[in-house]
C-alpha cells in the first residue's frame, strides 16, 4: 500500500490546522515523513517497504537466464551498489602499474562497445597506437552514447573487456604500453 498525492494533500490539510511541524508514520509496508519548513511549505519523504509479490512461474522467453536471476539475488544481498546487469564488468583486476602499463578506464558505467556500430571494425585493436584524444570505444549509459578517449599515449597491448560487456565506472578497458 502506498499513499497517493491526494492522500498526502488530505493529511496536510489536517496538519495545517494543527500546531505540528512534522509527522512521521511508519507501518510494516511504508514510511512517511512530512515536514513543514520555516516558510510553511511541506516536504514529503516516503518509502514503500512492502516487498514485491513475484509470480514464480516464468512465462515463455525467460528460462535461459533464470539462473542468472538467482545469482543476481545473492549478489544483491551482499552489495547494494552493484546491480545493473548481466556481466560483472569490472574488467581486468591486474595491476597495470606493475608492468609499467597504462590503463584506459571507463569514464562512467554502462555497456562497452568496441566499434562505432554493429558490424563495423573496432575503433582500435591490440597493437594499435593511441594518443590521449584517440577514441577507443563507446560506453552506452541510459540510452546515451559516450565516446571513450584513450587518455593515455602508447601501443594497445590488451583489450580487457569484450564488446557489449558491462563496464563499471573506472573499469580497466584496455592496457597501453607507453613504450
Amino acid at each position, binding site marked *: 500500500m502506498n499513499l497517493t498525492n491526494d492522500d498526502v494533500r488530505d493529511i*496536510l490539510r489536517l496538519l495545517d490546522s494543527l500546531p505540528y511541524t512534522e509527522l512521521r508514520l511508519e507501518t510494516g509496508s511504508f514510511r512517511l515523513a512530512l515536514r513543514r519548513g520555516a516558510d510553511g511549505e511541506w516536504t514529503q519523504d516516503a518509502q514503500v517497504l512492502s516487498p514485491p509479490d513475484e509470480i514464480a512461474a516464468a512465462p515463455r522467453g525467460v528460462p535461459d537466464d533464470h539462473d542468472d536471476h538467482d545469482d543476481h539475488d545473492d549478489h544483491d544481498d551482499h552489495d547494494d551498489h552493484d546491480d545493473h546487469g548481466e556481466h560483472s564488468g569490472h574488467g581486468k583486476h591486474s595491476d597495470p602499474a606493475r608492468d609499467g602499463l597504462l590503463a584506459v578506464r571507463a569514464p562512467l558505467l554502462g555497456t562497452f562497445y568496441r566499434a562505432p556500430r554493429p558490424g563495423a571494425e573496432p575503433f582500435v585493436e591490440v597493437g594499435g597506437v593511441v594518443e590521449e584524444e584517440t577514441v577507443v570505444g563507446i560506453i552506452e549509459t541510459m540510452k546515451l552514447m559516450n565516446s571513450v578517449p584513450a587518455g593515455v599515449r602508447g601501443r594497445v597491448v590488451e583489450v580487457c573487456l569484450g564488446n557489449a560487456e558491462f563496464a563499471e565506472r573506472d573499469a580497466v578497458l584496455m592496457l597501453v604500453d607507453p613504450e
Partner: protein
Amino acid sequence: MRLRRVLIANRGEIAVRIVRTCRRLGIETVLAVSAADRDALPARLADRTVPIGPADPAASYLDVDAVVGAALATGADAVHPGYGFLAENPLLAAACAAAGVVFVGPTETQLAAAGDKLAARRHAVAAGLPVLPGGEAGDVPAALRLAGEIGWPVLVKAAGGGGGRGMKKVTDQDELAGALGLAMAEAGAAFGDHRVYLERYVTSGRHVEVQIVGDGERVIHLGERDCSIQRRYQKLVEEAPAPRLGTAVRAGLHAAAVALGEHLKYRGLGTVEFLVDGDAFYFLELNARIQVEHPVTEAIYGIDLVAEQFAIAEGRPLRPALAALAAAAPSGHAIECRINAEDWTRDFRPGPGTVTRAAFPAGDGIRVDTHVQAGTRIPPQYDSLLAKLVVHGADRAEALARLRAALARCVIGGVPTTVPMHAALARDPEFAAGGVDTAWFPRFLDRALGHALDGALGHALDRAPDRALDRAPDGNGSGGGRG
C-alpha cells in the same frame, strides 16, 4: 467488457502512474519486470510482478513474445504499454489481438500509420493539415533535387521513428551526401528502417502539441502543451496551456489535430505535434501513446488520462463530460519539470547509481510522479528520468512561484540531478515572460552555466552576469557514436 487484470509492460515512473489509476479503478495489476527492476518501487506497488527477462531491454521490455507470454501466463485481460519500449509497436498490438488480450492503445493500423513518419505526413496532408515542404529522399541525386526545391538548410529525418535519432541539419549541398549516409545508418540502427526524408529546416519555432482522445468514431482535443524547452530533441519542461499563443493559432492547432484524428478514426490517446512559427504552424508527427508530459493536461482539465485509456480499451464511447471539457476553457496553468539523473554542468552526463535520499515537495497544486525512493537503484540500461514535478496554479505566475518554491524542496541524494538546472530556469526572466522558442534553451544554458561555474569558483560577484565560460572539456556527452 470490463477489465479486471492488467499487465503493465513498462517500468519507472509511468509504471507507478498506471498502478495508481488501476488501484483507484479496482483493476488488479501485474507488472512485467526485467531482472534490474524486480524490487523497484513500481514492483512494490503493483499487486503482483512477473519476470520477463534480463536487464537488457531488447530481451525484456522490447520483447513482444515475452510481454504477451507474461500476459497469458498471468491471466491478464489487457496490456498497458506505457510510453517508449513497445508502446507504439504495431507488432505488440497484433500479438495481443492474436492472443485474445486487449491492447490499451490505438489500433494496429493506426500505430503503423503514426510510426512511419512518411505515412503520417501523407495522412496529415490528406486530412488538410499544413506540413513543411519536403518528402522522401531515397538517394543522393533525389535528395539534392528535393533540397533544391525546398531550399537550404534542410533537415534529414528518419521515417522509422523520432527522438532525434537519424536527424541531421544540412546547410548546403556539399554536406548532403555525407549527412544522408550517416542519417540512414543511424536510422537503420535505431529503428531497423533506413528510409529518411527531408523537410525544410525552420531556425526558430515553438514546439506545441495537441492532446487528442478518440473512441474510434468521435475525436476530441484536450488543449495543447508547449514543449519548446528541449535539448537535443529531448523535452525538459512542458506546460499547458501554451503561453502567449494567438487565439487564432491556438484554435487552428486544435482543429487540425482533431481533423487528423477524425481522418484516422482514431481510438485512444494521441498527441499531434506541431512546429509553430509566428502565425503559421506545421504538422510534425503523431505520437500514438500516452506522453511523458500528460500530467500538465490532467492538471488543467482535472482528469485522469490513464483512466480514459482504460475506458476506451473497454470499448466505451467518450464520456460526455470529457467532450464537454474540450469545449470549455481549461482551469489555470500547469508546468512540468523532468528531473533526470544527469549532471547538467557536465554536458548532461547521465549518472546511474543508488539514490540515498529522496524528499519531494508536497501540498496544494503540487504533484510528483516518481519511481525513486531512498535505496532505489537507477540502472544504466534505461533512461535517466527520476521524477516529474508538476505544479498547477490559477495562472502562470502562480504556477511559476509554486514551481520555484517546490524545486527548492526537492532533495535527491546519491545521483546527480537536473534540479539545479530547473531552479535556474524557473528564476529566468525570459522564461518567466513565457512563449520562448526552441532556440532559446541552448542560449539560456550557456548563460546559466556561466553563472553556475562562476558561483562554484566563488567569484560570482566579480564577473559580468553574461559571461559565458567554456564548457567542461569532456565534450563527448551524447549524440556521438553508435550509428
